[in-house]
């Protein structure tokens, strides 16, 4: 049972951050299907920092540098989307898909090259081990093993929610996703706001990526990417109707199912049901699809998302 809670917390933390990232991007008007790729870049950068830091580095140094690296890498990779979709008005679905492929391929190439050069040509794997780094994030509260990652995620959730509802910046960002012409008519720079939205999604997505690989594991094979976590976050975002507080509890709900698939054998009454773990994996997607069908008439998807903004065409 404790294991279930631990897994749920970790998955929820990942899903909350990445889904919030998707939310900021879509609220500014850019559909971000590249969350998966952003996570991979964030995860890779974070993991490499953990590997590179000397073993005597203090816990705080490891935590801060890892998080910063992941966030920066996520933001840099999100620029691929921003430049193509905002400046060049490229198809947002195509670009998102391309970023995902780009991420997995380049992570594999980079990590392999990294390993090769560090091992003087004996290690060709796309695997990174970061046991020290992983341990640096752990805190024990009684029997429960909590990670700093979860605390960071919780803080960011609170900040995002306040930011989303209470700031001038977020008000403007949301206006750009709904009615960019209206925003423009009151002197708001729509392009800049959309850049901000995409970069925020890079920031949060990158952090989500490092949590995904480092909170429960001390090693990761980068040729697997992040195994659909980005897409699950997208489902969480839709399920949460593009609102931070709803995203939070949707993420927890989805995380429970995801954890059940991992640990259902360990809980007696669930094990007796003999449901394959995969079914639990499938469940969130089925539920999202049905919810989408029922709510699509009054769905709260930002009205102008997916439509490139052209200042000339008024």
């Amino acid at each position, binding site marked *: 049972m404790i294991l279930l809670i631990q897994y749920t917390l970790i998955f929820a933390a990942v899903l909350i951050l990445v889904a919030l990232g998707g939310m900021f991007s879509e609220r500014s008007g850019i559909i971000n299907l590249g969350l998966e790729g952003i996570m991979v870049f964030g995860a890779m950068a974070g993991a490499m920092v953990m590997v590179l830091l000397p073993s005597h580095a203090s816990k705080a140094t490891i935590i801060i540098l890892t998080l910063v690296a992941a966030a920066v890498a996520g933001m840099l990779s999100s620029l691929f989307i921003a430049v193509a979709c905002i400046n060049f008005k490229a198809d947002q679905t195509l670009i998102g898909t391309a970023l995902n492929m780009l991420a997995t391929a380049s992570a594999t*190439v980079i990590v392999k090259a990294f390993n090769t050069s560090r091992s003087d040509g004996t290690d060709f794997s796309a695997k990174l081990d970061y046991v020290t780094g992983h341990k640096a994030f752990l805190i024990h509260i009684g029997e429960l093993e909590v990670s700093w990652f979860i605390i960071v995620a919780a803080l960011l959730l609170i900040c995002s929610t306040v930011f989303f509802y209470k700031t001038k910046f977020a008000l403007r960002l949301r206006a750009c996703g709904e009615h960019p012409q209206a925003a423009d008519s009151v002197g708001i720079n729509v392009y800049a706001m959309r850049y901000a939205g995409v970069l925020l999604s890079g920031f949060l997505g990158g952090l989500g990526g490092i949590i995904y690989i480092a909170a429960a594991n001390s090693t990761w094979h980068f040729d697997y990417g992040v195994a659909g976590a980005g897409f699950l976050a997208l489902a969480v975002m839709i399920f949460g109707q593009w609102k931070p507080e709803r995203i939070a509890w949707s993420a927890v709900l989805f995380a429970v199912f995801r954890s059940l698939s991992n640990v259902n054998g360990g809980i007696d009454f669930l094990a007796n049901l003999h449901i394959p773990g995969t079914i639990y994996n499938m469940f969130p997607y089925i539920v999202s699809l049905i919810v989408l069908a029922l709510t699509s008439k009054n769905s709260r998807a930002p009205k102008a998302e997916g439509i490139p903004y052209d200042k000339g065409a008024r």
Partner: protein
Amino acid sequence: MEKKPSFFRRPGVQTVLASIICAILGILVGFLILLAMNPSHAVEGMTAILRNFLKYDQSSTTLMYYFGSTLVKAVPLILCSEAILFAYKAGLFNIGVAGQYTVGIMASLYTSIALGWSWWLCILAAIAAGALWGFISGFFKAVFNVNEVIAGIMMNWIGLYLTNIVLGSKKVMDQSTSKTYNILSKNPDALLPSFLANVFGHNQYMTIALPVTVIVAIILLVVLNKTTFGYELRATGHNKEAARYAGMNATRNVILTLVISGGIAGFAASMFYLTGIEQYTLASSVPGMGFNGIAVAFLGGLHPIGAIVAGLFIEYLTMGGQYLDTNYFNPQVADLMVAIIIYLCGFVLFFKHLMNKGKAKALTNVNAETEENTTTDEKDKEV
């Protein structure tokens, strides 16, 4: 405007040029990456990728064998891209091809290994599975107005997990190796009839899949351009409102398009797995074939025959990675190049815009939505 447009102004020529620009830029960036990784061996590495199986030029048998393997592996890629471009012509972005392909794998392997059906029945099962997956997306789109991209993504994952359950069972999967059984050992009847295997250095995986792929592309070309159905689909894709004005049935066409697109994706899976060249292993993420198909479709200029060329090119590059000297580079560099090319495909509109520079109206329509803009432009000028 009364004159025939010059060669470089023709939309067809521009599409080809834009794709070639993407490919060349992608290869250039790839070379830069090789340079960054290992400057002294970069040229050698690039040559290996581009030279590919042609390095076996001493032995025509070996050469043809590897050429055959490239063709076999290009088949599902080309078919997936046909599925995507078909839907795209009707204004639908069928990102669900990945899932439709996956359930196609499920149906073809389950019917062949567990049920012992013969090959053509297995193909039908795969088509049916893909079509059903497409139908569900189409139904949600047409009836509930759920965006087909979102519905497609959900269906991809549902399809993946379902496939893992079905193919993970003892009947289909060898539990010791975690791979599905070889079709040859379980049910040779399910293998596709071979085709020109002798010509291709006795490559046992050379099957009718090859000619069939070309036939499918031609059929799609005919359907899109010569039939009333294709006429409707393209009209809807170009201008939804005009299609409505002309009395076309949007609901029916959306569902039908995605059913056909899904059917092709399912078919693609059977054309690959029923050659016996590969076994399915439980996957934690949706097979990339459908996503690569998006790339090929765009690189091929969204043309059924263009997709064949683009598919062969992409597969050639991907395979090229294996010819790299692993002491200096790793094979995924080729995947990276492919991903860059796809990313660059997003800029096709921009490239075409550059080519049209100086021309008064530079709006080449790739997206159905741009229609609206031109209309308002006109209105403004009429004031």
